């Protein structure tokens, strides 16, 4: 069982301690994984591992304790997502046709219920948001960063982040209402 993420754990990680590394991974990898999923990264597990390899190789230069570590991890995750998105734009992926992924096919009531029961629906609606709004919502709520930290990660002002968050939440609610989901 990994130890909880504390300032001591971060200090031990800075010295290269393997147990501290594992504690960091246990605590923050779900956040990175969810962040990458919210952006629709094709292989979020592999990219999450890449993110943590980078994090652990540079953790000795970390400042700011646990909060600094969280921001640092999400900065690297954000950079990896941007790289991945650019790579995908340059080399579009091709898939075989599958009716399960064809939005023109009407789903049954059972499919609808199953889809909306879990996180699949919010993920699909989230991906239809503009990039900057989705980015802010993912960092604010999935990664649980404060406004100032989100501003640091994406290089915008805190005021701009607040505006993007507000617009994103409204757009998200509108999209979900348009999809016929009652909450």
């Amino acid at each position, binding site marked *: 069982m990994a130890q909880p993420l504390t300032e001591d754990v971060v200090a031990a990680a800075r010295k290269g*301690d393997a147990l501290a590394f594992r504690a960091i991974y246990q605590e923050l990898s*779900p956040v990175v994984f969810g962040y990458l999923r919210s952006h629709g990264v094709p292989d979020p597990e592999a990219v999450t591992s890449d993110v943590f390899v980078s994090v652990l190789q540079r953790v000795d230069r970390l400042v700011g304790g646990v909060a600094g570590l969280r921001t640092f991890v999400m900065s690297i995750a954000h950079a990896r997502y941007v790289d991945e998105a650019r790579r995908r734009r340059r080399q579009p992926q091709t898939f075989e046709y599958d009716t399960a992924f064809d939005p023109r096919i009407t789903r049954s009531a059972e499919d609808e219920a199953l889809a909306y029961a879990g996180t699949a629906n919010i993920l699909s609606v989230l991906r239809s948001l503009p990039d900057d709004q989705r980015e802010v919502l993912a960092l604010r709520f999935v990664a649980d960063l404060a406004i100032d930290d989100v501003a640091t990660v994406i290089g915008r002002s805190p005021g701009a982040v607040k505006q993007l968050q507000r617009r994103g939440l409204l757009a998200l609610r509108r999209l979900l209402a348009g999809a016929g989901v009652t909450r």
Partner: protein
Amino acid sequence: MTTPDDDDPEMTDQLEYPGDIALLMRELRELGRVPPPAPSPELEALLSQGIPEFRRRRAPRRLAAVAAVVLGATSATGVAAAADRLPGPVADMVNDLTPLRVGDHHPRPGAPLPTRAPRTSTPDRTMHPRPQSSPVGVERRGAPPASEPMAQPDAAPPSNTHDDDGSVAPRSPSSSPSPSPSSSPRSNDDTRSSTGSQTPSPTNSRTARDR
């Protein structure tokens, strides 16, 4: 610093359906509360072994070594360019390691002369006292310009044979023909500088005898 939840009430109060928005936020947060994914083999190695201290310190040390080499090379070439010659140790190193001969044309002021004296000129000729038999100013006037010996680095070292053939004879200031470069008065100078000047040199003894 604000915490993640600080501005949630602010956000929800501004919206028409706060309950809806709060639910959305909760769902978004649920996306980050899943079991950790399985690490890749590379990450698993890091997680189980950590990173030894020496590995993390190697990169800065390597960077410092490269910076030192670059700084040293830049300084050496800068000094060499400013002085129009290589620094002494660098010239010696080039002479030792390559067939090139650098630095011969520009002997160092403080360099010892014995090994290089036969091959190079003696720029500090006036430092040595002149023999009594030579009139003042003869050798200076008949001597080639300072740059001339440098153009003939392979001139034979002064020896007695040059003196024996009579080409080098004491000359008065008015009757000093231009001697051949190999038998210029510089040869006598070289001999004097290596033997000391307070006592008459063998050359001077011979020239007096010839007379």
